[in-house]
């Protein structure tokens, strides 16, 4: 079963980390990714640019409305994600707890679901052609 692990970090705190430490953290993430590939848990992962680089897209009454940044005033923002394959929640939690940046923030582990069309379940996921 697939789970999305959303990594929430305090952006200000993250920005305050010296570059040498950030570099080491990134290296640990890349190493972690290799490990997940070997263990069969890895589906996809990305690090995200800070929320300031975001654009919010809304479509209302056929018109596209754009605003900058996420609207939430929360301290922690999504900094990256892992899409993993795991046997069950306990296994997903074990993977999530080993994410190198986990000690710096919060990892939300959310199960993925199928999309039902007329009562038939379909996987939303696709591989790029």
């Amino acid at each position: 079963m697939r789970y999305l692990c959303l990594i929430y970090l305090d952006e200000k705190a993250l920005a305050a980390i010296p570059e040498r430490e950030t570099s080491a953290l990134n290296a640990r993430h890349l190493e972690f990714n290799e490990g997940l590939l070997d263990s069969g848990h890895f589906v996809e992962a990305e690090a995200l640019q800070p929320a300031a680089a975001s654009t919010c897209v809304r479509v209302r009454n056929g018109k596209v409305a754009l605003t900058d940044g996420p609207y939430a005033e929360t301290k922690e923002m999504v900094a990256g994600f892992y899409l993993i394959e795991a046997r069950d929640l306990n296994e997903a939690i074990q993977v999530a707890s080993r994410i190198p940046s986990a000690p710096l923030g919060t990892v939300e582990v959310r199960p993925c679901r199928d999309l039902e069309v007329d009562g038939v379940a379909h996987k939303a996921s696709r591989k790029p052609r």
Partner: protein
Amino acid sequence: MAADSPDVRSVVDAVYRAESRRVLATLIRQLGDFDVAEEAVHEAFVAAVERWPAEGVPDNPRAWLITVGRFKAIDRLRRRSRHDVPLDDVVEQVEAIAGAAPGADEGVEDDRLRLVFTCCHPALAADAQVALTLREVCGLTTEEIARAYLVPPPTVAQRIVRAKAKIRDARIPYEVPGRGELPQRLASVLRVIYLVFNEGYLASSGESLTRHDLSAEAIRLGRLLVELLPEPEAVGLLALMLLHESRRGARTTPAGDLVLLADQDRSLWDRARIADAVRLAEGALASRRFGPYTIQAAIAAVHAEAPSAETTDWPQIVALYDALLELEPSPVVELNRAVAVAMRDGPAAGLALVDALLERGELADYHLAHSARADLRRRLGQTEGARESYRAALALARQGPERRFLERRLAELG
């Protein structure tokens, strides 16, 4: 023996009381679903009432009920299935799980542990963990849980439905955690048990007599856990609960007013319970793998063994609080330690600590912090300061007996 003869019914009732939770625990594992398993348990007991008069009571009623429950569930699944659902796979899976089980009796206690750990999974909301545990592990009805917590039954039913949905949707596995995860997961179970106990502790202050004895239920749960998993902290929690219970007879007046530990009639303490609890606490401490509950039990044991408040070994208690703070730093524990320091070194020493604590701000809304300060000020003859603190405590205290106690103390100041 006729089907509705009192003998058969009473045998089935007795078997229900003794075995229904075990049967449920195993059927949840075999059938992979809480609701399906609950229906299966119900149908199995109905079948017992129908068939045992003619067939006789089986040698192993539990095994009989598990087998019959499983067959009934598969039947039900077949009847409900739609053509596009690969039911035979499900049935095959169920039979494989059932067949793989070592034997009817072995692993049953493992199933009960699986059930406890699943109901107390940290991924479930705290109130859902409590409701689910009371329902599935303890066998309380939704109505009993609702009455015990003074919430409407639909609220409890909702919590349980949501919890089961989460178990299903997030795929929370029906398993006992591995060694690595056990300490954290056990902490979650112990928290649920202690939450239930404390709810019962409050209830017994006489405000409502129709509430289920949650404290007794928690102790029963604690004993079950120790039986299934004799971890030192589980033993420590059981000891702590028994020690609290041992003082039940002494902690309120007939009118329902609070009697402080220092003022309690110690002849009303349940010495048998205390002896039992002290033995358990000593065992847990000896293991050297104990945690916060065990230390709290040790503190309660020191109180329990003191012939009077004055002869209590306060240095020992302060030392235990020091150990507790190292494991689990918390302002409330610091407050309790300050009270003990006051007993060991005099009220001035205690007051200095309480003042510093309240200065930090975390306990500003905690009525017991203000009432502790009030008491220490009173003992030092600082009457105006004591009055101010009793008033602050009263502004925050919610329970009737506690309020009456504070009002009395305030009045005594003149």
